[in-house]
């Protein structure tokens, strides 16, 4: 026990909170408190706070238990929905990256093969078509169309992905 601590302090508080202080409690406690500075202070503070609590309790309005429960339940559900949505966003990002990677890999593979393919087409067209000028024109056109087709395909793959990530809030 320290100099500011009294073993009967709690008894005084209990008596005050029970509304028994000082008239309806143990005489020895009242006698003790009259000589104990700590208990006098404790009684004074406790009476004031107890009075304040009593008064505040009358006025205070709390929401119904069901309302608190309902709000908590909805909030818990909302939080779990958020938590469940988080891995989905990651999955979308990973899928997008994979699609982009596959597309770039395909372009890298196809691009060096393109002149060869065009040469094959030109050789084939030379056999079929009567004029070499027509065959050359077709080959030139094919080279231009192939480049354009790759750019269009790239836009078709990349644009929806870019749009998705731009509009996604996560």
């Amino acid at each position, binding site marked *: 026990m320290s100099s*500011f601590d009294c073993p009967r302090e709690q008894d005084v508080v209990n008596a005050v909170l029970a509304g028994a202080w000082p008239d309806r409690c143990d005489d020895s406690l009242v006698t003790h408190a009259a000589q104990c500075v700590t208990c006098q202070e404790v009684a004074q503070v406790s009476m004031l706070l107890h009075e*304040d*609590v009593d008064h505040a309790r009358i006025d205070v309005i709390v929401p119904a238990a069901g309302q608190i*429960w309902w709000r908590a339940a909805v909030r818990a559900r909302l939080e779990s929905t958020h938590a469940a949505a988080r891995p989905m966003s990651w999955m979308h990002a990973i899928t997008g990256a994979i699609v982009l990677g596959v597309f770039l890999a395909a372009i890298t593979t196809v691009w060096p093969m393109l002149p060869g393919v065009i040469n094959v087409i030109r050789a084939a067209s030379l056999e079929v078509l009567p004029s070499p000028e027509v065959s050359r024109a077709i080959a030139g056109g094919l080279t231009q169309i192939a480049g354009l087709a790759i750019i269009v395909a790239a836009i078709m793959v990349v644009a929806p992905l870019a749009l998705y990530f731009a509009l996604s*809030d996560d």
Partner: protein
Amino acid sequence: MREITLTDMERLGALDEADRTFQMTEEAFRAFYELTARPVRVYLARMTGDDRLADDLLQETYYRFLRANASFESDDHRRNYLYRIATNLIQDHRRKPFMEVPAAAIVEVPDAAAAAQAAERAARRLDLERAMKQLKPRERSLLWLAYAQGWSHEEIASTIGVKTASMKTMLHRARRRLVALLTPGERS
């Protein structure tokens, strides 16, 4: 963060799920809430000095309590845990200025003697309120739990999160300060 809203059906589903999500059933919660809500609300209001904030913190306190992954040995332990949450929430808001809580108006006064008594009580409450405002948030919490709720030193120490010996020293200091602030002539 993308906004996620719940449909009415999902809201109903949330109620079904709640018994599994929360650490107690709705029935048990209702009983516990009836016992604790008013004192906790008064505690929050007196510690923050803001009734609206106290309402928000009350909801938050019970939400955190319900979601807590804790097991309780007794009702007292459960109640102490609830107050610990409330105390932590108050401390989170302690940087905000302590606002005046308007004293309740005395509506009906039957006679002069009762009027004088009521006025005296109102003045005492106002003095207490002013004195409490000048204390630190932790001092207010300590005094409230010790002398308005009647908690033991050990219970308060575990709720505040300090050792019992340190708590006793802090409580003594807070009590001395409050008494000094309430004593005419000693007010700073």
